[in-house]
């Protein structure tokens, strides 16, 4: 057999040259995680040319409000997906919390009490999800699929499968009020987005969420309160679902057990399209905001062009596939780099 040559010890690639820590790097990495900006601009330009009335201030305002409403659950879902999990029950939570709020108002109680009750119901749904996932060890997919069905059923039982019609000025304000000329949902969305960024990137809770999504076993071995964090994230989604439910009910001035059908997929879609990895570990809050804008721009533009809703669904589905394909291709890069090192 051939004598072996001992290989010269290859020095491994040294650490990337010391990068200037702090803002410069952060800014660049923030831009790097916003691959949605170009497609968003492209779509806006395309509709500006093709769709009549797209560029009117009323229409753009509508788009902004729609995106603002959907971004709130999207923010909570971003945390959940960053943790490597997701929640399918949020659409059903919309129905239940909207129904609860509207029913309490219809029955003549104070609007504030109705809002609080809606939020508390959302919180309870979320905590229940969290407990089932952590304490019973049911995988998030099955646990939240079951809770989606149960909560939807509860909403129909609660409303007796009838619409709960209300006419309430406070609710109207939540959906369509314009303090300082800015639509109220937009204000809520901006405030919550800033808060979400702070929590996600600057607090222990946010970093623990990313840690759990990055390496769950290590999180346990490092002594992180893994179960508490997970329950808290599901609780947040419950509350966000309640906010969503209240605003949608406020827009329609009614609660219904059929509200929010399929909404859970919208909430997950904007997060994934926004670039937060389904594998967990990396959150892109701004990506989620852009994802919400992109989806709502497309919906609105296609509406204006009289494209039937079924085709809108198809286009959003295709968008989702494209976003995931881009993520998958990005993941593949390291392996190809390995291949290139052949010699």
């Amino acid at each position: 057999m051939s004598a072996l040559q001992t290989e010269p010890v290859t020095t491994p690639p040294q650490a990337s040259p010391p990068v200037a820590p702090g803002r410069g790097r952060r800014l660049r990495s923030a831009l790097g995680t916003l691959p949605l900006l170009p497609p968003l601009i492209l779509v806006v330009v395309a509709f500006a040319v093709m769709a009549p009335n797209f560029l009117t201030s009323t229409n753009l305002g509508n788009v902004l409000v729609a995106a603002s409403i959907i971004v709130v659950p999207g923010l909570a879902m971003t945390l959940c997906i960053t943790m490597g999990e997701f929640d399918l029950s949020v659409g059903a939570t919309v129905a239940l919390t909207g129904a609860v709020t509207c029913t309490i108002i219809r029955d003549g109680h104070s609007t504030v009490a109705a809002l609080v009750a809606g939020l508390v119901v959302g919180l309870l749904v979320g905590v229940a999800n969290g407990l089932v996932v952590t304490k019973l060890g049911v995988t998030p997919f099955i646990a939240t699929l079951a809770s989606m069905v149960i909560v939807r059923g509860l909403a129909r039982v609660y409303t007796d499968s009838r619409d709960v019609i209300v006419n309430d000025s406070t609710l109207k304000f939540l959906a369509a009020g314009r303090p300082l000329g800015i639509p109220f949902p937009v204000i809520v969305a901006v405030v919550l987005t800033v808060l979400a960024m702070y929590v996600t990137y600057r607090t222990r809770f946010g970093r623990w969420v990313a840690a759990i999504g990055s390496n769950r076993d290590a999180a346990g071995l490092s002594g992180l309160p893994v179960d508490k964090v997970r329950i808290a994230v599901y609780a947040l989604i419950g509350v966000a679902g309640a906010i969503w439910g209240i605003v949608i009910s406020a827009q329609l001035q009614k609660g219904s057990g059929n509200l929010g059908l399929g909404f859970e997929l919208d909430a997950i879609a904007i997060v994934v399209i926004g670039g937060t990895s389904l594998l967990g570990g990396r959150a892109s809050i701004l990506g989620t905001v852009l994802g919400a804008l992109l989806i709502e721009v497309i919906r609105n533009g296609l509406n204006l062009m009289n494209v039937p809703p079924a085709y809108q669904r198809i286009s959003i589905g295709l968008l989702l596939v494209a976003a995931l394909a881009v993520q998958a291709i990005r993941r593949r890069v390291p392996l190809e780099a390995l291949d290139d090192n052949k010699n």
Partner: protein
Amino acid sequence: MSDSVLLGLDGLTVEFPGVRALDDVSFSVRPGEVHALVGENGAGKSTLLKVLGGVNTPTRGTVELDGKPYRPSRPRDAQDAGIAVIYQEFTLFPDLTVAENVFVGREPHHQVTRAIDYATMRAECRKIFSQLDVVIDPDARVGDLSVSEQQLVEIAKSLSVDGRVIIMDEPTAALASSEVARLLEVVRKLRSEGRSVIYVSHHLEEVFAVADRATVLRDGRYVTTLDIAETTEDELVRRMVGRDVESVFHRERAEVGEIVLSVESLRAGRVLKDVSLEVRAGEVVGIGGVAGAGQVDLTQAVFGATVVRGGTMTLNGAPFAPSTPAEAVHAGVGFLHEDRKQAGAFPDLSVEHNLTVTVLDRLRGAGRLLSGRKQRAVWRTYRERMQIKASGPGQLISNLSGGNQQKVLLGRALAPGGHLLVLNEPTRGVDIGAKSEIHQLVNELTAQGVAVLMVSSDLPELLGMSDRIVVLSQGVVVGRLSGEEATEENVIACATTGRRIGVAA
């Protein structure tokens, strides 16, 4: 050095269902010493570390830290007591920054705003790294660092909890030799600060380079503790092995025929750098070495399951470069995965289905539908040939004993009609009886002209069943042993000390 005791283990016993992983182990670690923990695979080292780290709970026995009982029930307890374990599988978060990793779970933060104090974290990080004489950017993403830098992050993590006892499990397993030197330097530095280090390694040269004392474990039992200054590598190896090669291994040499597999200067996967070997018909070539020396890369390269980056292979004289396992199977390579549960058996399928699953396309009858008759015929053939004990073709494979499961999988590996078997840990997790049955089977298969490439971390098996042994270390061949040279001492010496036998240096 003082004789005082920092960490004292007394009668430590850990039992898992059916296994006693640690059996009455007692020894002590002094303050400010580097204490090596050595032993073969399965000697109980990892279990011991997990007890100290608060992951496993001892069935019996006690641990004392500084004279006080130490009973961690979760990893956090260990950290709080100043015992930091650096597991072989790092407990790092690739998506977080270096500073975030070092302080995970203990981030300094503002009481009211809840904001993490990144400035303090960065400063503390730099301080720790400068103690270690290394430069790592606290803001770098850990996933972007090299393995050795990640290791240093783990060490920084253990220093940030002010670990008095720092436990390192195979810290050099993934390091290049220049990085090993740097790591040993860090270990000495830790000692000079008065910390104790428990250093687990297969590499005896590292043990001799850095440790003050070494404790030997074997089969879950305490063997001895030796002063490194007063012992030799040979002595340590003898203590690690310490038993006769069991006589259950009865290799019946078969007539050796043509070259079936030839590997030339193969470079593949993550570790394998340069390996040449050949396997002839009727021959068992054993691959030895410590875990991670390149065995996995070698067998996976032959099976088309990893990236081949250089070198050539031939199978039955023809060029052979499978890029997927399917190609390898098609070319006649049978592969037995080391992890039967994860990557071998389909637990919910019948034994017959498990056996025929790779050859179903040949078992079709009228209308291209699967033919039950043909499947049954294959089952009967291999039940006979492999002496599989099952109640019938429909029995679930998960209801068979480990040994019989392994026989079904061996049958599956051979069913495509190949003449090369790649066996990874063929008797891991099977009982003694089934073990010798499988060995007998290997004897019969080689007598039928099958060529066998076998990886086994079970030394007696490797020695007992191989006609020739090729020992790997860090991706290259360091030993080619056959006949009288094939002894446990020689295999361990080649694998752990870098000594070369039968190979030009």
